[in-house]
């Protein structure tokens, strides 16, 4: 079983690396977005899967990353790295200041608090137009560049995003496997027992909240460079809901689930768009179908297929 699992992972990596050059350009573009959403959704997934927190405010950090990159690269003409770092610093600081007080809440109260955070931030993005460009936004964000190699096609950017996704997944994997991960799950499943084992739940949850914010910020900066603009229209409540859908769709506790969920959110609407005006209805129906028919998420269903075929192969 162990060997076959490594095989699947190796095979998936091979496909992710080798296939895109043969795909049409707009499809690679969708994969880039799937990658960016994976990074942001991973943060939400860690909170949901490891701490049981439904975060409806990821858009705040995604937007901070995007605006930091936009403002610094366009108005200050700073190098791209500065945008990434400043976005992450602001996000971490904000996550600490907001997270510490609100993470004492639980359940739907906490979900509402994160939602409220998203609504407040959205209103401020409109209001602080000296910083965000208000409703017009900021355009002309330069393409990312690695030495003199400009990432100006979807395919080139795809490989960067793929690398970032791989690193983030690896780090998340190690986190879950570590003592911290163990403490997190203990806390999620039985808070009292965890406290008796000297785990400080609020501090631990705040740390994961900050980590989630960092991931959101990185995703936002990547998005800003890829799209070349940052506009408040990209940072609405609907996007926050999408970021929450990603881990839920894929299966909250699994890391691969986040990737699968992000692919669903990025690719399925595009595939359905050939049905014209019906496509949004069909997207809703597709969501319903996944929930009703696949209780363990898309990855759970995939694992089931895998298990069955393995059983089938054994006489």
């Amino acid at each position: 079983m162990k060997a076959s699992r490594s095989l699947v992972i190796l095979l998936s990596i091979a496909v992710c690396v080798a296939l895109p050059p043969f795909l049409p350009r707009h499809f690679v573009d969708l994969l880039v977005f799937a990658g960016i959403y994976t990074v942001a959704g991973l943060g939400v997934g860690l909170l949901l899967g490891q701490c049981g927190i439904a975060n409806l405010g990821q858009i705040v950090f995604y937007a901070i990353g995007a605006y930091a990159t936009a403002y610094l690269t366009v108005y200050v003409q700073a190098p791209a790295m500065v945008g990434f770092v400043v976005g992450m610093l602001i996000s971490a600081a904000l996550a600490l200041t907001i997270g510490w007080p609100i993470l004492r809440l639980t359940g739907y109260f906490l979900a509402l608090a994160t939602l409220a955070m998203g609504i407040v931030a959205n209103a401020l993005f409109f209001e602080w137009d000296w910083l965000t460009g208000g409703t017009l936004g900021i355009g002309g964000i330069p393409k990312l560049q690695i030495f003199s190699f400009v990432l100006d096609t979807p395919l080139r950017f795809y490989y960067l995003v793929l690398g970032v996704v791989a690193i983030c997944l690896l780090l998340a994997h190690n986190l879950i496997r570590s003592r911290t991960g163990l403490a997190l799950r203990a806390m999620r499943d039985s808070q009292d027992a965890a406290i008796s084992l000297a785990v400080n739940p609020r501090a631990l949850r705040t740390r994961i909240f900050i980590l989630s914010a960092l991931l959101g910020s990185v995703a936002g900066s990547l998005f800003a460079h890829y799209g070349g603009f940052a506009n408040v229209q990209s940072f609405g409540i609907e996007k926050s809901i999408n970021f929450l859908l990603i881990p839920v769709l894929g299966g909250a506790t699994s890391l691969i689930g986040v990737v699968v969920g992000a692919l669903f959110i990025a690719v399925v609407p595009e595939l359905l768009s050939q049905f014209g005006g019906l496509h949004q209805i069909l997207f809703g129906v597709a969501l319903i179908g996944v929930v009703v028919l696949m209780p363990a998420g898309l990855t759970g269903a995939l694992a089931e297929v895998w298990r069955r075929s393995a059983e089938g192969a054994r006489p």
Partner: protein
Amino acid sequence: MTAKKTYHGRAPAAFALIVAGVAFLSTPAAAQRSGAEPFKIGVILALTGAGAGLGIPERSGALLAEKIINSKGGVNGTPIQLVIEDDGSNPDGAISKANSLIHREKVSALIGSSQTASTVAIGGLTDPLKMPQVALSGLGPAIERDRKCVLHVAPSQALNAKAILEYASSIGAKKLGALYDSGYGTVVYNELRKLSDAYGIAFVATEKFEISATDTTTQAAKIRAAQPDAIVVVGVTGVPIRSLRQLQMKQTIIAANGLASYETVKSMGDAADNVVFPEFLVGEDPLPHQAEFVKLFHKEYGRFPKILEAVGWDAVHVILAAFKKADVGANNEKVCEAIRSTFKGDMTDYDFSADDLNGIKLSNIVYSKLVAGQFTRLPFQAKEK
């Protein structure tokens, strides 16, 4: 437990169904049209989501243009074909739609989008290729001034603001109230603020509301308390106008052209009275050069067009005119050069070489007034200073 087992039993089947569905949907349409290759123009509009109120009327104007142009023989003998895509009011979607139109459909030019964010997103792709793009949204962030192949057929915010102030001063209003939304409303309001001194007009009460606010009564009450001579409203729904009228404020309301549509007027209910719009097209009483378009539109759809339909119609014609001038096979740079000139549209006259990228003049503005829910064209005409 048995129930659980059957439940999981369905998951693989459902998953297989999804995989099959994805595979099916991603197979490109095999049937290629034979015969002469049409002249393809990509169109990206907000047909669903929050911007659908813009994209749907724009599409009807563009589709009519396609039909009429083809009935007259297309461009230099080649029929035109609009490839229309929906960005779902989402700029992320606009990027992949534009990529698909440019690289898969091989369109010669792009129209779109309905909203600023998507327009800027698409501009990031058309600009390096110097592909002509006609945007239906107003002028966006600073970068758009450098994008030489992106045109804007919607009036600039400065022009909107001037047109409003011209009318206010013509009725002798010195103290104005302003009720504007946090989106485009704020942009127009900033211009109004800048220009108001020159007109000797002061804003005595200014209130903001969210773009999709469902109620603005409290804001309206604050404006009422300031007793302005007239009220400026900039938004996209009829909500603020209803709020003002329900508080029994009888003053003239001057509303930006985003509100000049039959749909918003309907949503105003009986508040749709004594509201003045600086706009471009009054279907009930069109200008001579608009009469033909209004007639064709009415024949096709059984209703009158308004600014959004006219913008969709003009956008197709602008592209065509440029390609006619530069020749259909001309390279993009030549077309971009050809497009940067004057164009007599049916909505209004443009000069795409002007500073604000479309050169619509104050004297092109048509003023209309809602009287008991009906648009009537006013004799008032603003003069360029």
